[in-house]
């Protein structure tokens, strides 16, 4: 059916994949390079990993990042899943407005969200940045992604399954718990993963809401880059890439990733 691709097209595709992965490979390779300055290979070392483990600033930043990410995942997953389910299932006045409200945080440049939250927290409450403030900000930009992911999943479910459960005598709560929720689970898991990735990675919104003692890993890495390159950044990056890859592999085995792929694909159409 599909015939043979032209050699040019295949070569181009392969090159693009190389383009996508080469920087990550470079990053990993140079985390083991026995030289602080040079970008040519000087021999294998683990010294950057040892220095990283002794770097309390980095370790503290990692701890803050994880605390914030967990809070963001929990908050955004609860609020976003309810919202996504509501939008898929219910017809109510103003649902068009809610859809727009959901898209706005995605369309708004991160920097605008960062400064508006900074102005909000500092002018209204006199707050100067803290872990809690960052967590509130992260929940805010994660809700939309979770809601859209869950809505896509909920909309693809056959409502007759829940009706069948009701007809067979299940209570409304029972039908939801035993039929709808398990079917929604992959979408909720995908939304939670997305929220974790977005929160863990966020630099811009965080940098406006960070304060003393609430430096996250991206903020720490960013200031590290500004003050000169150190292979310790390569080491922490390699660890992050490794952890993310393992998590994605697990998610792939559990099937959640296919839902995430579908949801991300469905997103542009929602817009």
């Amino acid at each position, binding site marked *: 059916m599909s015939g043979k691709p032209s050699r040019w*097209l295949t070569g181009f595709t392969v090159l693009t994949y190389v383009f996508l*992965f080469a920087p990550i490979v470079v990053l990993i390779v140079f985390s083991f390079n026995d030289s602080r300055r040079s970008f040519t290979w000087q021999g294998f070392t683990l010294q950057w990993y040892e220095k990283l483990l002794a770097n309390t600033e980095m370790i503290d930043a990692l701890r803050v990042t994880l605390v914030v990410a967990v809070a963001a995942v929990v908050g955004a997953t609860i609020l976003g899943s309810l919202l996504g389910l509501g939008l898929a299932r219910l017809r109510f006045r103003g649902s068009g407005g809610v859809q727009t409200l959901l898209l706005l945080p995605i*369309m708004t*440049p991160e920097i*605008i969200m960062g400064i508006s939250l900074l102005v909000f927290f500092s002018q*209204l409450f006199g707050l100067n940045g803290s872990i809690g403030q960052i967590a509130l900000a992260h929940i805010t930009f994660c809700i939309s992604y979770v809601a859209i992911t869950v809505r896509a999943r909920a909309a693809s479910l056959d409502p007759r399954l829940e009706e069948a459960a009701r007809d067979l005598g299940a209570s409304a709560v029972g039908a939801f718990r035993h039929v709808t929720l398990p079917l929604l689970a992959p979408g909720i898991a995908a939304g939670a993963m997305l929220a974790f990735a977005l929160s863990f990675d966020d630099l811009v919104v965080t940098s406006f809401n960070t304060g003393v003692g609430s430096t996250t890993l991206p903020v720490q*890495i*960013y200031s590290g880059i500004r003050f000169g390159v150190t292979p310790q*950044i390569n080491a922490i990056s390699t660890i992050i890439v490794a952890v993310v890859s393992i998590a994605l592999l697990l998610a792939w085995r559990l099937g959640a990733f296919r839902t995430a792929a579908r949801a991300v694909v469905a997103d*542009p159409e929602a817009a």
Partner: protein
Amino acid sequence: MTAAATPADVESARGASRESAGTRSAAAATSVLVLPGVAWLGVFFLVPLAIMAVVSVGAVDSAGHITLANPSLRNYSHALDPEFIPALLRSIYYAAATTLLSLAIGYPVAYWISRYGGRHKVALLILVMLPFWTSYLIRTYAWVMILRDNGVLNSVLLDSGVIDEPIPILNTDVSVILGMTYGFLPYAILPLFVSIDRLDYSMVQAARDLYASGRGAFIHVTLPLTMPGLVAAGLLTFIPALGDFVTPSVLGGAQTTTIAKLVQTIFTAGRDWPYGSALGFLLMGVTIVGTLVALRSLRREVMGASA
């Protein structure tokens, strides 16, 4: 109703009875499901924007506090000073170049995955998305190591004798556009894939049977039918690229000031929040107008394609 009610009749009757009996429970469900999220976005998204709007018409007094004593639009008219317009134009230039490159690279790749990916389609798509799941900042930083004067690229070119002196690439327009294209390419490939994969290939075959050349069939059949995907991919690349802060500040230098960088500098260094807020709103305005224009053309394309 006759004795032999069709399943559709039963379905609609059941739906109607449930709806009338459940109006109150539907309202309750709406308030439980929808209200918390909407309230959250209202308090932590819309209210901050409103406060930023108020601050943007204020000024900074001699003590450095924000004052609303004489509200005016002067911060917006300051935007016409030679600081803002070049930054805006540079942002648009970077975003447009990034979008065009991402579409030009993404289209053939999405086409290849769709037509020749076979049973590996999903795996190939996940490979495209894999970098998206690792930190954007870290991936941008990786390009610093590649593009620096003593970086990987220059080292390879020097060692192989292609060049005698390192080419300065970092901190230029090229490094910023390259970094952005790298970062946003996955956003382009996914919607392109969806649209190309949905294309009924027998349409292309029909065009070929009617003596269209390969190129003619592509231009007159494939391209118009996948136009919604192109517009969606363009939007998904252009919007984040326009407001991107990370790439121009990590891979760019002083001469690559974009609006996002300008706003960030005003907020952290200059601390003239009213002026920074006004510039922020202008960036948001450009973003939203651009999105609406693109969406309108998407709608027209979709209608045109289905007509």
